[in-house]
């Protein structure tokens, strides 16, 4: 089963990190990805640009409305995700606890929906 681990953290903390601390954080993420990958439990992942680079799109009554900024102004924003390959939700939760962001932010684990009848891109 595939699960998505959505990583929420306070962007303002990250932005104030000196370079050395950022490199250390990236090294921790690489170590997590290497370990999970070697165990066959990692199927993907990406880091998102900060919310100040976000654009939000809505369509109302046929009209496309575009606004600068994220969908919601929140203290802890979605900053990235991993796609985990695990046998159960419990296993996915255990693995997600090893994601470095869980130490200061929050990691939300959600099963990825699979509908065999559905056309996937």
């Amino acid at each position, binding site marked *: 089963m595939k699960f998505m681990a959505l990583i929420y953290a306070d962007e303002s903390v990250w932005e104030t990190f000196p370079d050395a601390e950022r490199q250390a954080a990236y090294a921790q993420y690489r170590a997590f990805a290497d370990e999970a990958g070697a165990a066959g439990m990692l199927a993907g992942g*990406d*880091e998102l640009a900060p919310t100040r680079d976000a*654009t*939000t799109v809505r*369509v109302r009554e046929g009209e496309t409305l575009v606004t600068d900024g994220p*969908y919601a102004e929140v203290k802890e924003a979605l900053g990235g995700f991993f796609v985990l390959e695990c046998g159960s*939700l419990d296993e996915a939760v255990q693995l997600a606890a090893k994601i470095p962001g869980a130490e200061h932010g929050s990691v*939300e684990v959600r099963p*990825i929906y699979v509908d065999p009848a559905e056309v996937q891109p």
Partner: protein
Amino acid sequence: MKYALLIHGDDSAWVDLPDEEKAALRAEEMPQWISLFEELSKADPGVSGYELDGRSTARVVQVRDGERIVTDGPFAETKEIVGGVFLVDLPDLDEAIRLAALIPTAKHGSIEIRPLQE
């Protein structure tokens, strides 16, 4: 530039529907989704997408002082939560906006476009 198109929507009405009604709604929206998938694949043959299960399946994990804290439910306490994401490589933001507006749920929810970090 690679973008994440994050699909935010209110799934509370959806999760309570009986399976037959869900299937009927899916069937009704399916032509729009198929034409979206075609447009996305045309723009980037390597496009990928994930649909997430509803909020009742969500767990939040935090580690504080070495202790694991697991809570039920999604992280955001808002009505609209992330329901899925497309990852797509596009020439510019305008193209991302054009494709985001083609996502059927943009008509009642919101699509947040975020560039991916290299």
